[in-house]
C-alpha cells in the first residue's frame, strides 16, 4: 500500500497490545468453536480447523505479548479516534439514508458527516464538496450506470 505506519517497532507497547488482541481473538475462536464437532484427523469435523487456528492465535498472542513485556519502553502510538468514529458513522449514515432518501441526499449527507473527520473543516468548501460529490454520484451511479438504487426520496 501507499503509506506505511511510522515505525514504533521498538516500542514494547505495540507488541504487548497486539499480543493481547491476538490472544483475545484466539480465546474467542476456541470458546465459540468448542460448540463445533472436532472429529479426528482422518475425518475432520467443522471444529477441527477452527481449533487449530484458535490454538495458534493463543500461542502467537502469548509470544507477542511476552516479547512486548520483555522489551519495556512503553511508547503508545497516538490514536486518531476522531476520524475513526466519524468515518464509521458516515458509512452508517449512507446505509440508513440511501433506500429512503435516495442516492443524491444520502451522498450529500455522507460527505457532510465525513468532512468532520478533518482537523478544521471549513463550511463553504465542505458544502460545495458535498453537493458536488452527491450530484456526481447520483448522475454516475443512478443514471449512467443505472444501478438499482433510488436517486430521489420516495
Amino acid at each position: 500500500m501507499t503509506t506505511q505506519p511510522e515505525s514504533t517497532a521498538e516500542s514494547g507497547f505495540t507488541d504487548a497490545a497486539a499480543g493481547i488482541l491476538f490472544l483475545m481473538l484466539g480465546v474467542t475462536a476456541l470458546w465459540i468453536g468448542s460448540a463445533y464437532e472436532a472429529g479426528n484427523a482422518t475425518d475432520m469435523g467443522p471444529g477441527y480447523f477452527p481449533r487449530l487456528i484458535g490454538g495458534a492465535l493463543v500461542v502467537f498472542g502469548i509470544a507477542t505479548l511476552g516479547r512486548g513485556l520483555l522489551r519495556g519502553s512503553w511508547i503508545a502510538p497516538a490514536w486518531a479516534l476522531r476520524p475513526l468514529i466519524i468515518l464509521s458513522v458516515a458509512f452508517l449514515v449512507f446505509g440508513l439514508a440511501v433506500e429512503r432518501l435516495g442516492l443524491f441526499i444520502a451522498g450529500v449527507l455522507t460527505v457532510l458527516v465525513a468532512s468532520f473527520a478533518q482537523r478544521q473543516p471549513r463550511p463553504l468548501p465542505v458544502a460545495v464538496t458535498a453537493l458536488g460529490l452527491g450530484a456526481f454520484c447520483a448522475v454516475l451511479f443512478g443514471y449512467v450506470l443505472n444501478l438499482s438504487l433510488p436517486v430521489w426520496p420516495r
Partner: protein
Amino acid sequence: MSELWNALAVGLSVAVTLPNLGACLLGALIGTLIGVLPGIGPVATMAMLLPITFYLPPTTALIMLAGIYYGAQYGGSTTAILMRLPGESSSVVTCLDGYAMAQQGRAGTALATAALSSFFAGTVATLIVALFSLPLTAMAQSFGPAEYFSLMVLGLVAAVIFAHGSPLKAVAMIFVGLLFGLVGADVNTGIDRYTFGLPELRDGIGFVVVSMGVFGIAEIIANLERPERRDGAVGTVSRLWLSLPEFRAAWPAAARGSAIGSLLGVLPGGGAMLGSFASYALEKRFGREPERFGRGAIEGVAGPEAANNAGAQASFIPMLALGIPGNVVMAMMAGAMLIHGIAPSPTLATARPELFWGLIVSMWLGNLMLLVINLPLIGLWVRLLKIPYAVLFPAILLFCAIGIYSVNTSFIDLVLVAGFGALGYVFLKLDCPLAPMALAFVLGPMMEENLRRAMLLARGDPMVFLTKPISLTLLVAAAGLFVLLLVPAFRQARESTAAG
C-alpha cells in the same frame, strides 16, 4: 509453439474488440490516476470498482481491473520522479535516482526512461505469462489436495517474509486472516460457524468487504492524522527522450530488471514491489561506480521501473495457471472472477480460452497504450495532485459506500466495512501487517478444504505432505524462506525496504 501462436491469435481477436479496448484504456487511465495520487492504492480502487464491473461481461471486467494494477505502476513512477512522492509502494526506489535526475533538469529523460523500461518489461512479462501458463497448467493437473495445501502454505510463508515489520506478528496476522475466512457455513456439514446468528454471514464475509475496510477506510484514517503534504515544486519537463549514451546505459538495466521482476513476481507473496527493490540493489551492487546511485544514475530508474512492471504482470501466473492468488491484488482478481461465476482453477485456459488469452494479450496492449498516452498527459497528472485531500477522502468514502452497498444492497455489509476499517487501523497502529491477513483470508477456505481432503485420502497420516514429492518440494521451499530470515544481509534489506 504453433499452439502458443494460435492461442495468442485467439487472445488478440478478443482483446481488440471495441468494448475490450475501451475497458483496457479506461482501466489503464484509472490505474495511472490512482498511481499518481498517494493515499489510494490499486486494491482499494479495484474494490470500489468491482460492483461496476458486475455489469460488464467477465472478460471485459477482468481486462479493466488488470489495467488498474499495471497502470498504477506507471502512475506511481511519474510523481516519484517529479515530486519525490511515491504514489505506490513499488515506486519508492524510483524516487532515489529519478528525483535526483529531475533536480538536475533531466526530468524528461527520467520519465522517458521509466516509461520505456516499463513497456519493455511489460512486453517481456506478457511473453513469460503466455509461455509459462500452459506448462504450469499441465503440471497443475497432477496436483492433489496435499500439493494444493502445501502450495498455499508456501504462499502464506512468502507473504510473511516479504511483509513489513516483525515476522512474529506477520505470522499471527496469517491466523487472524484464516479465522475471518472461517466465518460462514461449513462446506462439508452446512453448520454455521462464527456467524453470530446473522443469516447475512452464512455465505462468509466478502473479500471486497475486508479489503475495502483494511485497505480503503483504514488508510484514510491513517492519512487524516498525518499533516497534509503537498509541497514539492515541479520543475519544467524538458525533452522527453534519451540520448544514445543514456539509452546504452539504461537498456541492460531494464533487461536485468525485467528478469528479476518476472522471477520475483511469480513467487507467491511477490508482486510489483519486491522486484523493484531487488533490481535497485543489484544495479547498485554490480554497477560501475556505485557511488553514482542516489545522485541521478539512469540505471537506478530503468532497472526498478522495469522490475515493478514485470513483477505486476508475472504475478498473474499463479492465479491464471494454478487458480491460487499469490498476492492481495490477485485475490481481488479472483474475487472478480467469482462474482461472475468463474472459479479460478487450472482448467481456466482450456475452459475459457477467450478470457484467459484475451486478458494476456490485453495486458500487452494496455502497456502500449500507457506508453503512448502517459508521456503527453504528464502535465495533467501532476495538476491532479493539487486536488486537496479534503475533497479526495470523502469521495473515496462515498464511492466505497455506494460500491459495497450495490453488491448485495445489504446494510450489514456497510457495518462490516466500517468494522474492518476500524480493525485495520488498530492493526496499522500496532505495526501488524495487513497484506498477510488479507491473503490468508482468501486462501483460508481453500486450505481447510484441501487439508480435510488430503487427510481423508491419507487416512489421517500427516506424513502425506512430506512423502509426495511436489508437496515436499513446496514445503522445503517454504522452510527455506524462513531460513532466509536468519541471513543478516536479508534481514537488513527487509527492514530497510519492506512495505505493506
